[in-house]
């Protein structure tokens, strides 16, 4: 009789353990996920909270209905990387970055603080909105 090389795999205790692992995995997979932001929402909080304001939430979905990507990423000059744009409130008031449209002519002006500074306190800067949003360092 040839020795069964896989004897240890067949031990009932091992089978039970394997079953337990599968069950635990399925529990994790089907656990309800917490509510998340809309895909492409950007939290901008490099300075806001330090200055006593709520973080800014930038919704890509809202803007791309109204403007092609090139408007903000060429004409306004936003780099395509969360965190690489240094946006100061003074710039916006003087008509740079968001202020190129948010000037009471194309869109609401910078006096409407609460409409942009609408985030939950404590949010970290970055792109949000779904299981595949994250960018560098995620993996």
């Amino acid at each position, binding site marked *: 009789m040839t020795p069964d090389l896989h004897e240890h795999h067949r031990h009932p205790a091992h089978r039970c353990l394997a079953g337990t692992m599968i069950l635990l995995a399925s*529990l994790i997979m089907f656990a309800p996920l917490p509510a998340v932001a809309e895909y492409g929402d950007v*939290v901008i909080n490099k300075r806001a909270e330090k200055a006593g304001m709520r973080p800014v939430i930038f919704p890509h979905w809202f803007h791309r209905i109204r403007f092609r990507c090139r408007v903000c990423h060429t004409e306004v000059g936003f780099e395509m990387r969360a965190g690489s744009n240094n946006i100061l409130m003074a710039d916006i008031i003087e008509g740079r970055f968001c202020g190129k449209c948010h000037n009471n002519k194309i869109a609401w002006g910078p006096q409407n603080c609460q409409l942009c*500074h609408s985030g939950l306190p404590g949010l970290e800067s970055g792109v949000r909105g779904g299981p595949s949003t994250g960018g560098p360092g995620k993996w």
Partner: protein
Amino acid sequence: MKRRLSELLLVVCFGLLIVACTEPEPSSPSAPEPAQALLSGPERWKTIMEDNLHDPAGPGAKQLQNPAEALFYLPSAFSGNLVRWVEAIEEGYIEPRPSILDNNYEMQVLDLDVIRTRTADMPMVLFPHKKHTEWLECGNCHEWLFKSKRGATRFGMFDVLNGEYCGRCHGAVAFPLVECFYCHSVRREDLKTPVTELEMHK
């Protein structure tokens, strides 16, 4: 003893699973909530007030437009914003402004497909310039991110997953990286003539 322990664990897990499956959601006691993307109405999109990003206690959140109010009317998808954005433009659902500086500006649409052949066991990648240049201009990707010269830009899926190259947008704002076959769309056996690396046609 070991066996007893694992059997006990198994029973506990079964118990937990049954509890997890049967416990009704506090908000909808009748049925468990189906996955967000499988819903058909405006409830597919989280509202601003419950998206865990906006502060419901703040004055701004209740003044902002909810995603469903706009996105519900656009061609639907199963990932990202649940919107097929390119079709939304091509079929005239939306007409985003191409410029805020020049009222006569027109998008420079380029109809040129690029096939990336070195994709291991996956189908080859077809990159359609047309769909991209309806949103972007040449300079948004060339020459800093992608060189125009054939074969000059070498990157892999790992770079993309890390948010580089295609991953600058795909996985952040453009359709997410769970949609493998949107890009990996050309099967080798379907091409009549074999192509070399970065063959362009049309």
